């Protein structure tokens, strides 16, 4: 790899378009009369020059902005495709995902599932795409920021004529004397330029810091991606759902059995035309019922002492808290959010024992559907035995009674009624809205006598230790954006060449701004306003 020595004495890396120090163009460039491309100060992006080992080839692949843009385009398209069918977490629980997609959407659904679109963020190829974008960011940035930094650091005050002539803003004026130069220098300093002087030549520069904006921004993105990666480390991120009935005390998952929660009450408020502000009336007329508040009143408890799972723990009350939407209960690194609810789950069921022929009542029983008792003693020699209990009753394929779940959605009972006439008892089967009498000769019947219900709250148990990293990445990202967007890197060269004064200027953005500044600068001097050469170039 040959380094190129410029006539000014500076040694440039191979592939440099114009000298880092004086701006003299290389021979090939010299013939080109167009304006200079100042994007990376003419420095050599290293990927374009070395292409030797496998490492270099991999490096150069990721160093290409074209590759980076394609990676982003592909990732965006994949994300878009991922929204066509519902993601796995939103499909009903009735059948496994492997069957669901094919069943609902045919061959397209099957393909969708096989390609991993059903759980996009966990698809290996999607993760590889995201990771490749991250790698591309790191390598693209490194490959550009380092040469750019070096080139800007090595630039000299006196630049080569060819460099000045090819700047977009350029003009020739009559020669200035020392006082006039001093005067312009003061004006530049006043405009907060950093002015360097060399043999009567000036280089005024400000806002170089703006050039680092994109790279700061990329550092922010990398930190952001790193934060997202942290979620995979056990203990950094928890996202679980806890269903808890009113009155129940349950261990909070992922707390190693240390914290318990008691649900005192679930409240669902709706807007009431009578009580609430009239302003809502119109909206309420239009849509009907609108929920005002979802709230779970809970008590946070902490386990005291050393009990092993299964033993009744001694619980200490930590605090009571009304959890509302977006007002989670927070403790340690955990937060419990109101996420769902179920109203009026059956909790108790009452029956009346009556004589079949006379409807004479012989007593009531109330069955706790979560923990039913086995026997109910009534007066006068009557008692009821609960022979079987099916909380979520259904007939299985053999027409045997069975339960579909442990939730009392559809309770059914087999009773044995013991009476003075029948000390052995007579059996009956009772389910909601159906009493299946096994025998016509039963003397008594259990008739339905009311229910008690309670509500169930669903809370999201969330712990996220990665948030600070992600927020920090976001902050750095924004700093980079601001740095690059609100400052301009402006340079003005004023050089004495062969009895004339040359002015050339460059800015990375806002050309109007720099032209106006130059206008103010030359006001009252011999200098003539430089031209914007890009206008001529366009005409040609």
């Amino acid at each position, binding site marked *: 790899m040959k380094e190129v020595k410029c006539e000014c004495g500076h040694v440039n890396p191979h592939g440099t378009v114009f000298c880092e120090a004086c701006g003299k163009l290389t021979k090939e460039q010299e013939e080109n009369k167009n304006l200079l491309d100042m994007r990376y100060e003419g420095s050599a992006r290293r990927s374009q020059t070395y292409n030797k080992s496998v*490492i270099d080839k991999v490096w150069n692949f990721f160093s290409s902005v074209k590759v980076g843009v394609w990676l982003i385009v592909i990732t965006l398209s994949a994300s878009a495709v991922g929204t066509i069918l519902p993601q796995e977490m939103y499909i009903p629980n009735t059948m496994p995902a492997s069957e669901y997609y094919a069943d609902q959407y045919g061959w397209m659904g099957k393909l969708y599932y096989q390609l991993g679109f059903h759980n996009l963020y966990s698809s290996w190829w999607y993760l*590889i795409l995201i990771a490749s974008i991250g790698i591309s960011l790191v390598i693209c940035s490194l490959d550009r920021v380092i040469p750019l930094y070096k080139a800007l650091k090595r630039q000299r005050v006196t630049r080569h004529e060819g460099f000045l002539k090819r700047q977009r803003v350029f003009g020739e004026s009559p020669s200035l004397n020392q006082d006039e130069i001093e005067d312009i220098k003061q004006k530049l300093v006043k405009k907060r330029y950093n002015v360097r002087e060399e043999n009567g030549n000036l280089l005024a520069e400000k806002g170089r810091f703006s050039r680092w904006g994109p790279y700061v921004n990329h550092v922010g993105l990398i930190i952001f991606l790193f934060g997202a990666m942290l979620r995979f480390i056990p203990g950094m991120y928890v996202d679980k759902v806890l269903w808890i009935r009113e009155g129940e005390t349950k261990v909070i998952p992922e707390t190693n059995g240390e914290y318990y929660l008691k649900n005192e009450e679930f409240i669902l408020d709706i807007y009431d035309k009578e009580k609430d502000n009239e302003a809502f009336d119109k909206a309420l007329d239009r849509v009907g019922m609108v929920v005002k508040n979802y709230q779970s009143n809970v008590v946070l408890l902490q386990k005291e002492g050393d009990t092993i799972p299964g033993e009744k723990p001694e619980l200490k009350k930590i605090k009571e808290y009304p959890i509302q939407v977006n007002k989670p209960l927070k403790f340690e690194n955990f937060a419990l959010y109101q996420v769902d609810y179920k109203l009026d789950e059956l909790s108790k069921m009452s029956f009346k024992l009556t004589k079949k022929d006379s409807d004479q009542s012989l007593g009531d029983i109330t069955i706790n559907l979560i923990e039913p008792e086995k026997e109910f003693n009534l007066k006068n020699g009557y008692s009821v035995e609960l022979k*079987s209990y099916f909380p979520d009753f259904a007939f299985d394929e053999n027409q045997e009674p069975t339960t579909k779940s*442990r939730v009392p959605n559809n309770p059914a009972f087999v009773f044995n009624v013991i009476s003075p006439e029948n000390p052995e008892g007579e059996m009956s089967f009772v389910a909601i809205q159906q009493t299946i009498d096994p025998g016509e000769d039963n003397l008594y019947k259990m008739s339905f006598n009311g229910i008690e219900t309670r509500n169930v709250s669903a809370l999201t148990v969330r712990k996220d230790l990665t948030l600070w990293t992600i927020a920090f990445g976001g902050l750095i990202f924004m700093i980079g954006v601001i740095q690059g967007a609100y400052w301009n890197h402006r340079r003005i060269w004023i050089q004495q060449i062969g009895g004339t004064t040359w002015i050339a200027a460059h800015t990375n953005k806002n050309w109007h701004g720099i032209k106006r500044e130059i206008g103010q600068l030359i006001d009252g001097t011999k200098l003539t306003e430089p031209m914007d050469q890009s206008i001529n170039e366009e005409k040609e």
Partner: protein
Amino acid sequence: MKQKRLVIRSIILVILATAVAYTLYANFTKDNVKAVNVGSKAPDFALVDLNGQKHKLSDYKGQGVFLNFWGTWCKPCEKEMPYINNQYHYFKDKGVQVLAVNIGESDLAVSKYVERKKMDFPNVIDKDSQVQNAYGVNPLPVTFLIDPNGDVVKIHTGALTESMVNEFMTQIQPLKEK
């Protein structure tokens, strides 16, 4: 110079590749991150069976424990119960203990079910899901095989056949009993 470039590029690429590889690995295994893993100590617990007798896992040290989680509503559980029962009778005096943990159902529903299905082994009920949480049990049935040292040697999710039950119990049988 060239050497330095190669070294720096290699280091950066290795760091990036490691991060990507870890993320992919963690993603593939995230569904298997369990509270209890094969090779780890089985978390101790104590539950009371239907006859009022307390069963503490650590009391069974020196014996293999066939720890089964089940529910009355769970179809595959129903299928494997007779097999477990048969093998329980065969292994109960050979150093293998069966503990069946029902997840949070009522005493009545469980005891009637146990009666109906003629399950002779100890059945305990995990009322407040403490043991379920400690073992990270989600879909039922799940069987943990715990060796005489108290280490988990196998975790099986899903229904078992009788030959599997037999094989599993043989696997955790103390050496001196074989």
